[in-house]
């Protein structure tokens, strides 16, 4: 069998095993949470009998091992089960609860990735090309600054900036400044598009409207993830520039741009895609803070709410989606690393 195909199948198998182990961890972790849905739902005044009856109704009175296998059995068949919030005659499946939220999260993640990845690669390549120049220093400093702030801070600062468009001129601070300065700051602020600071999204929001409303969360996330990817691109290329074949390319009279793009970058993909995969996974798994700030209805918020109400099937499904995202993206990164390495792709 082609060694590349074999490696990919191996990784895929390992991914499935990892996912299986993750189900055990998720289930045990959630089983260890204090309280349960029945108690949380019925409140402290409920009698033990009512709680027990409710527990029986949603099936959490059965032993954990039995519940675990029932759950895994359902998942294997593609069924995530029903939310505890279902009532007789009003069944709410986990899938239908999660689907729109997952769509929103994916929407935001893809939109951010489309901005952040090319931006990071471009800046990284240019920084490597003009390393130690003022451009390199500015890019490094700015990206390092944005990654140093907590994401909620970046989010609130951006929101504040938008609000300041309309309010700056009336503030005491503005009035304490000379008039021309206040006017020019105001002019600059008004160059900023008036992005919505609250991301009101429903399933009826039209596509471009969705883009417009998701702009601020997307920019926040971009600022948070660009630095990591850009710095890795820069360093991976610079490391390659010390290779003898780069010297050779210089002695062949290649231009610096051709050296970086044609000779260094193709050998630098492996470390770069690993970092990109890591950051894209973060866009799905770690966005909850940004979702809260902009009230963006994504899967992160859904999971937090579900934990609060002890809606175990929803929590489990969310955790599983997160784990699968990580595994899948890392698998993709591995495959790209292999595909860009001719030693593996074209064995002797």
């Amino acid at each position, binding site marked *: 069998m082609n060694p590349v195909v074999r490696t990919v199948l191996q990784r895929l198998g390992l991914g499935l095993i990892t996912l299986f182990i993750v189900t055990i961890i998720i289930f045990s972790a959630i089983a260890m949470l204090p309280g349960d849905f029945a108690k949380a739902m019925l409140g402290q005044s409920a009698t033990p009998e009512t709680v027990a009856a409710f527990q029986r109704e949603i099936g959490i009175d059965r032993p954990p091992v039995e519940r675990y296998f029932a759950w895994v059995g359902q998942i294997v068949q593609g069924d995530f089960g029903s939310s505890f919030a279902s009532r007789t005659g009003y069944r709410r499946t986990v899938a239908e609860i999660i689907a729109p939220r997952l769509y929103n999260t994916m929407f935001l993640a893809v939109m951010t990735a489309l901005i952040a990845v090319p931006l990071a690669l471009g800046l990284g390549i240019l920084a490597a090309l003009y390393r130690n120049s003022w451009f390199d220093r500015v890019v490094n400093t700015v990206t390092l600054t944005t990654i140093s702030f907590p994401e909620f801070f970046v989010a609130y600062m951006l929101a504040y900036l938008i609000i300041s468009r309309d309010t700056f001129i009336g503030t005491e601070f503005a009035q304490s400044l000379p008039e021309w300065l206040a006017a020019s700051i105001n002019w600059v602020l008004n160059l900023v598009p008036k992005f919505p600071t609250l991301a009101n999204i429903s399933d009826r929001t039209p596509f471009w409207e969705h883009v417009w409303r998701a702009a601020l969360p997307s920019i926040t996330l971009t600022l948070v993830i660009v630095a990591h990817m850009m710095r890795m691109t820069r360093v991976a290329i610079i490391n390659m520039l010390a290779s*003898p*074949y780069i*010297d*050779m390319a210089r*002695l*062949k*009279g290649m*231009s610096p741009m051709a050296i970086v793009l044609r000779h260094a970058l193709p*050998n630098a993909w492996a470390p770069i895609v690993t970092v990109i995969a890591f950051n894209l996974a973060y866009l799905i798994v770690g966005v909850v803070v940004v979702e809260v700030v902009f009230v963006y209805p994504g899967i992160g918020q859904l999971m937090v709410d579900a934990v609060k109400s002890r809606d175990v099937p929803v929590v489990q499904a969310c955790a599983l989606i997160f784990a699968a995202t990580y595994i899948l993206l890392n698998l993709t990164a591995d495959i790209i690393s292999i595909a860009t390495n001719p030693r593996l792709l*074209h064995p002797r």
Partner: protein
Amino acid sequence: MKSKNSGQREKGTKLLSVRNLHVEGFSDERWHPIVRGVDLSLNRGEVLGLIGESGAGKSTIGLAAMGYAKPGCRITQGSILFDGVDLLAMTETARRRLRGSRIAYVAQSAAASFNPAHRLLDQTVETVVAHGIASREAANRDAIKLYRRLHLPDPETIGFRYPHQVSGGQLQRAMTAMAMACRPDLIIFDEPTTALDVTTQVEVLASIRQIVEEFNTAAIYVTHDLAVVAQMADRIMVLRHGRTVEEAETRQMLAAPAEDYTRTLWAVRKLAKPEVPAADHLLTIDNITAAYAGKVKVLQDVSIKVPRGRTVAVVGESGSGKSTLARVITGLLPPVSGSISFAGHRLPRTLKERPKDILRRIQMIYQMPDNALNPRQTVEEVISRPLEFYLGLKGGACDRRVGELMHMIEMDESFLDRLPSELSGGQKQRICIARALAANPELIICDEVTSALDQIVQEEILKLLMRLQQEFGVSYIFITHDIATVRAIADEIVVMHQGKVVEQGLKTEILTPPHAPYTELLLSSVPEMDPDWLTKLLETRERKRVGAAN
């Protein structure tokens, strides 16, 4: 290049003229001179050999002839006139236009100098296309012609392979094709065959010589090997510490070098020791077969006897299994079958099963002293470690012994608190020898211990090893690919090829004809000082080939 009628071949007008070249390199926080005022000139179609030890500045001069200084180096003074134009006065863009198209470069390690991500053909034609000389299709067709002229196998398809898919000798020829692609006026060959086995070297040298002659290309041939440069160059320039020692026509230089330094450069080639037959054997290797990862057999039914107090040279090319043999003897790689007996007792197969005393009696010295020494340990720590570990020496007794050992390797005790980074290559190898000696071993395995050293240092190390053998009666297994080293040190010779022993016996038996066919090939491939050696060798081989065909 140099052909039979080299003296009479017509040389063209002046192509390159370097005057008062100074180059500096940056290290340890300051600029050091590398090249100090070198002049050289080259006519069209002429081949100049630059020769010297490491640090002589020969590669730096080669690169400077392209108007190029390595990162961390700078050209501080001088002029480099190429075809009448000063390279140093040009803009970088203008220099870039010359590089690859009119001045090309062939690097020492083709394996490292080809980009692993692209096919050979794409890399070969890259300069032609980038400099706008021809279309990609035309360039591809021409590259295939060049591959054929350089005797690469399957010239039509070899270009579609990636660098890791072809052998070292083929890569070096592909790199020559790459340099030739734009039909440059000048090619810099920077030690193009140093990393190759001798049998491969002959083929590459012949290909390079032929194609350079065919296109009447001028060349600067950088090497540390006088015998090689004698085959390739019309004129030789000897360099030392960034200065010219002397310069002369090849024949004149070989026949009558003017300077003492030049004579020392080939001193090691004249080193020869009379063999002494041994009374008994210290180590007997019996039908050893060994394999890596349980699959590929690297040694097949190898049987070797090592005489007590003598030196056995194990000779072979890369991949012949000679280093694997060392790993089997030391127990690092347990053999699949066969046995080894040492001083009359059977050696346990693996390192783990061997008692400390056996480990003490077999020591090893490696090719790269840099990698074999812990960079954070002082000389004293390096040498006292085996004294403590094997012999339990402590305090004053240990210090005295360290002093004795330093004396044995002819080094001062003032070196004791130095770190490896503060020593020269030869000194580092001496420390490795002292470390091996500290254990009072009966057998020392020397794995290419002089390959990474300059000729003069090689000679010193070989003399030291021979003296130590006379004084302490230690036996050596000397693994090497260099026949000159074998002549210098061996009592017996084992010739290995593809994991098998081809021939073994006393040195004179092996080195005097008739030889086994592989030994013949190996010995005849070792370059000799005679400037006509390569020409004669190729003629002899051609005759034999024709004779065999009839």
